[in-house]
């Protein structure tokens, strides 16, 4: 949509929000900027919709996580246990 005049909801322009949007969704920006983005999204439908798409991409990718097989985890735990009990020679460079 054509913007006829400059708006800065939350103190940020839409372009500035797009620059930091992904970091914002990842929780990787400072609290002050995050607060400004939140207020911008409250007031700007376009950016809020765009943020919705990116957030949905993130959730969609997150569902691809394959659970770690319980047997593998148990075997790694027991390996750790044996290490801590001094049952494994830690001076060997490699395990093969």
């Amino acid at each position, binding site marked *: 949509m054509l913007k006829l005049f400059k708006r800065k909801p939350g103190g940020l322009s839409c372009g500035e929000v797009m620059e930091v949007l*992904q*970091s914002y*969704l*990842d929780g*990787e920006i400072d609290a002050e900027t995050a607060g400004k983005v939140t207020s911008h*999204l*409250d007031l700007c*439908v376009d950016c*809020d*919709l765009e*943020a*919705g*798409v*990116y*957030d*949905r*991409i*993130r959730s*969609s*990718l*997150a*569902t*691809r*996580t*394959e659970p*770690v*097989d319980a047997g*593998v*985890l148990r*075997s*790694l*735990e027991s*390996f*750790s246990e044996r*290490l*801590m*009990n001094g049952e*494994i020679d*830690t001076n*060997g460079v*490699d*395990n*093969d």
Partner: protein
Amino acid sequence: MVLLMDRPTETSAFERHVVPELDVLYRTARSLTRNNADAEDLVQETLLRAYRAIDRFDGRYPRAWLLTIMRNANINRVRKKTPDLLDDPDATFERSAEFADHADPEALVVEPVFDAVVEAAFEALPAMFHDVVELVDVNGLAYAEAAEILGIPVGTVMSRLHRARKRIRDHLTTAEVDVDTPSYRARLTKGS
């Protein structure tokens, strides 16, 4: 069973800092090796090295510390396996990612629903972008943690990740499946 209190400090430090990260370590190793057996070997090698170094570890950011160890262990592993690829560890990481058996052709012809388009776009990403998305979005690493395992600056992780997601986003636009996505604020209220 040995009681915690009887153990020397290195052992309790290992138990406190390392053991809780096993799950993340294995997931990351799986991304690096693309193979369950190699992933398990790589985690064991990482644990071994971590155990040897635990008395020099200051206790801060154990995950980042472990990922650095894993990166080095993996470079060693890849070198031994493929001696011809020895100069550039990042190239070998990307090379091994390219060999992966992803990109299921079936996934490309299913109806263009959101998740299917995201999956196809994700699998079509060049290895350099694919790896970062897999570490951060699929495996849940923070930017700094992904930077640690890839041996690249945080800013590079960020720009690759953002460009990768932008590509996925563009696929959605082309496939016209992003139109019915609720806004972020609406997703938040619906989700919680």
